[in-house]
């Protein structure tokens, strides 16, 4: 699925600005990554730094920072969690976030409460698709993928 060339995956969970996606992993952790919208706005990503594993992150405190040549900002966090681990492939090659935004997770976190409670603050499925497309239209975002 896509809007304005921006890929959307209905099985993932999103914040209401569609900056990040969240996926339930087999080990019970939650993977966090950037959406196609976010990687497009950022441009070629040059640096990613993740909060040290074991760090408690309350809702509102970012799990990571991302820098490109023209953009810098947080990877937002919407629920209380602990950083489980970072994706070292992404730390070594941040451009993976541009090339494969939905495969290149940034961090895995463990929610402080239940997974269901953590995901309750996110949107998914058809509702998320409608919001995602609205964001693309409202901000006139045309997604581009980079190959390196």
């Amino acid at each position: 699925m896509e809007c304005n060339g921006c890929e959307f995956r209905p099985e993932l969970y999103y914040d209401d600005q569609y900056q990040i996606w969240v996926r339930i992993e087999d080990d019970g952790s939650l993977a966090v990554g950037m959406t196609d919208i976010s990687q497009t706005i950022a441009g070629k990503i040059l640096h990613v730094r993740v909060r040290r594993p074991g760090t408690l992150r309350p809702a509102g405190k970012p799990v990571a920072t991302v820098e490109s040549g023209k953009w810098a900002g947080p990877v937002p966090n919407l629920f209380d969690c602990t950083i489980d681990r970072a994706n070292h492939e992404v730390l070594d090659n941040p451009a993976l976030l541009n090339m494969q935004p939905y495969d290149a997770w940034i961090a895995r976190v463990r929610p402080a409460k239940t997974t269901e409670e953590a995901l309750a603050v996110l949107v998914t499925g058809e509702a998320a698709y409608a919001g995602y497309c609205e964001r693309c239209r409202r901000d006139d975002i045309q997604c581009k993928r980079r190959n390196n």
Partner: protein
Amino acid sequence: MAGQRYLDNEEKSVIIVMTSGPSTPHRCATPFYMAAILASMDADVKIFFTMEGVKLCQKGVPENLTAMAGGKTIIEFMRDAKAAGARFYLCRPALPGYEMEVANVIDEVDEVSSGGVLADLILSCDKTLFF
């Protein structure tokens, strides 16, 4: 430290005093870029616009200013900093010298303040940066 992969800094407060303005556009993007990074690292970031920096808060100025030919506009850098959590303070005493009025400042400004507020901010913060 340079090249650190993990973030484990403590929360700090940072004041960025922005004195550069449209006469030196190449000095007008980096402060907001740094503000966005610092705010993303849990720093409490406040940007205080004074001297020529106040011109960046005049409607129509940052929207039409770039630090490099063909680059992002300064208002986009300012909005990135705001989105990351930075707050903007505008120096009221500096406005008359640039023929500016409060009614004509951009919506991104959080507070129009006296010089005393800047003094308080500097004395109470962990780090101060001047651009």
